[in-house]
């Protein structure tokens, strides 16, 4: 802890960065087409979404809670957006604002119920997950919105930087910087972290912990809605099943990214760039597994193994850091 250089080396982000580089090397040597323009572009579109989903989960993990309704919420918001654009003919920019407000509102419901009942957010969001998804299916009659404005869908298939990168990735990276700024340098961001780290102490120092927790849930809803819009732009349609049944397909990337990134599940710690690296790693591995042809049905199995390996490694790293610091 005394030296300046090893401090960064000891962090989770550094380990992740190494892993990302190692996996890039492995996949580029062992598979054809990993570094092709097409594959990198495809990767950038997927990474963009995984980062956003990871961030949406991260801000709730900050409170020591969870948001199981993430996928259902994101899809509901996206379907709402599709309805606004296709059925109501509302312009794109206003639709996006409405969708983000809608997502924040659904997040507010999660936060409000959690804070008022004092029940773990797991059970609250388990309930709201099925409520949101149920209402969404009921109202849309499980029909997709496929006639979205061209300007909107074109944005999703736009190619930047010599056709290597999707603009969606830029949105996600910018969101990372904004969140980093909020958590690092603003009053409200510090209060959010304080409330998550030690609710009692925060309450005593005059922070309304309940309100902070509701803000975290709203932010999560906001980011999930943003992810929903991005996914809609990417596939060019708003489809009720685009995140799987009850939005469950989002759940693994949502937890993988922050947990790999070093966010503590007990709350009180956020690692924005760790989450970003975590999402990149997950997408890389996912993509690589397809390219080295393990068979699409085994991909899930390996993702589970990787999550398990990651948390175990993290625990080992923690153990050795503690041991080292005691020795020195």
């Amino acid at each position, binding site marked *: 802890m005394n030296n300046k250089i090893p401090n960064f080396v000891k962090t989770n982000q550094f380990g992740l960065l190494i892993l990302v580089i190692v996996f890039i090397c492995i996949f580029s040597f062992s598979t054809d087409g990993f570094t092709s323009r097409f594959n990198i572009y495809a990767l950038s579109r997927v990474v963009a979404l995984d980062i956003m989903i990871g961030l949406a989960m991260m801000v709730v993990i900050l409170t020591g809670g*969870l948001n199981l309704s993430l996928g259902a919420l994101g899809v509901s918001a996206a379907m709402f957006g599709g309805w606004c654009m296709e059925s109501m003919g509302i312009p794109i920019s206003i639709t996006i604002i409405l969708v983000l407000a809608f997502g924040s509102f659904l997040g507010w419901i999660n936060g409000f*119920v959690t804070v008022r*009942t*004092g*029940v*773990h957010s*797991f*059970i*609250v969001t*388990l*309930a*709201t*997950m*099925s*409520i949101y*998804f*149920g*209402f969404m*299916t*009921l109202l849309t009659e499980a029909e997709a919105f496929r006639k979205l404005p061209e300007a909107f869908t074109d944005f999703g298939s736009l190619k930047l930087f010599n056709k290597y990168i999707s603009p969606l990735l830029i949105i996600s990276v910018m969101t990372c910087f904004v969140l980093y700024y909020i958590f690092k340098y603003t009053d409200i961001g510090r209060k959010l972290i304080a409330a998550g780290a030690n609710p009692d102490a925060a309450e005593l120092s005059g922070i309304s912990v309940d309100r902070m927790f509701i803000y975290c849930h709203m932010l999560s809803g906001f980011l999930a809605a943003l992810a929903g819009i991005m996914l809609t732009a990417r596939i060019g349609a708003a489809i009720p099943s685009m995140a799987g*049944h*009850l939005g469950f397909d989002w*759940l*693994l990337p949502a*937890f993988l990214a922050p*947990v790999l990134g070093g966010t503590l*599940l007990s709350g009180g710690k956020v690692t924005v760039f760790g989450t970003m690296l975590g999402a990149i790693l997950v997408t890389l591995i996912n993509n690589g597994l397809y390219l080295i042809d393990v*068979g699409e*049905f*085994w*991909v*899930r*199995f*390996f*993702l*589970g*193994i990787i*999550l*398990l390996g990651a*948390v*175990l490694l993290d*625990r080992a790293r923690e153990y050795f850091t503690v041991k080292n610091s005691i020795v020195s």
Partner: protein
Amino acid sequence: MSALLKKDWFGLGLVLIFGSILISLFKPAFISPFNLYVLMLSVSLMLVVAMSQMIIIAIGQMNLSVGAIGGLVAISFTGLMEVYSMSILPAVLIGLLIGLACGFINGYITVKTGISAFIITLATLYIFKGMNLGITEAQPFYEIPEAVKFFGNAKIFGPIPYLVIIPIIITILMWILMNRTSLGRYMLAYGNNVQSSELIGISSTKIVIYAHVISGLLAAIGGMLVVCRLQLGTPNIGDSWLLPSFAAPVIGGAILAGGKVDVIATAFGVILVSIISQALVIFKIDPFFVQIFLGFMILLAVFINRYREYREERRTKVFSDE
């Protein structure tokens, strides 16, 4: 009488009785033998799943992989019989063994690493489900012995299906475990307060592993019962278990922080959920509403439990003031 009123299951029981009478007054079809038969089948299956989750809630953790274990066991059970033409009994035993192993993995990793069971079981959920899909390549097994089909669909007498036998035995055994054995009481003590339970000499390793092994076994039984009922082994068995598995214990008044579960109330929770789902079908309400309703039921149960706690707190406060 007042002691009875305080029980979690008492209020639920009243709701059940009055609810059933009310529904059957409006729709006599509700108490038709066929409907009762369908109701009992759905209660039987969910009862096992709910117990599998309840025992983990008792120790203050959660098990996301219940459905994945059920699915893996279901396809192994049918696969062994179809592909390796194994007879029923060894296939059942191997199925139970797989459930036991899955539960052991969950419990062992959770307790040895100290990482939240939520994350561990999320990872194993994907591992078990991935194995399931990898083995089956998303194709169901159709060749099921006649005896298994018979067990899943025959009736003992009247509308009572054979399928209820095992869940009833399990419920009784669970009640004995949680109320009359030291292991069950230790589990509740552990769920209530990990530190103090360790101080009085309860081994966390043993408790957590036992709870997860029992959970895995019950999930395995649930998976095999679904196979009997459906007469085929599809890879998506267990996919929809997560919500109901938590709904019943929560409606039954379990505290998710651990240390308090009520087997009878959980069973009543299962029956309540089944009756409501059934009633919504009878009243020709959109099936998607069932899901929304289940969500609202959980929230309602959470609010009621919270209110009762609050009243309890106030009462004890009044007494201590005197």
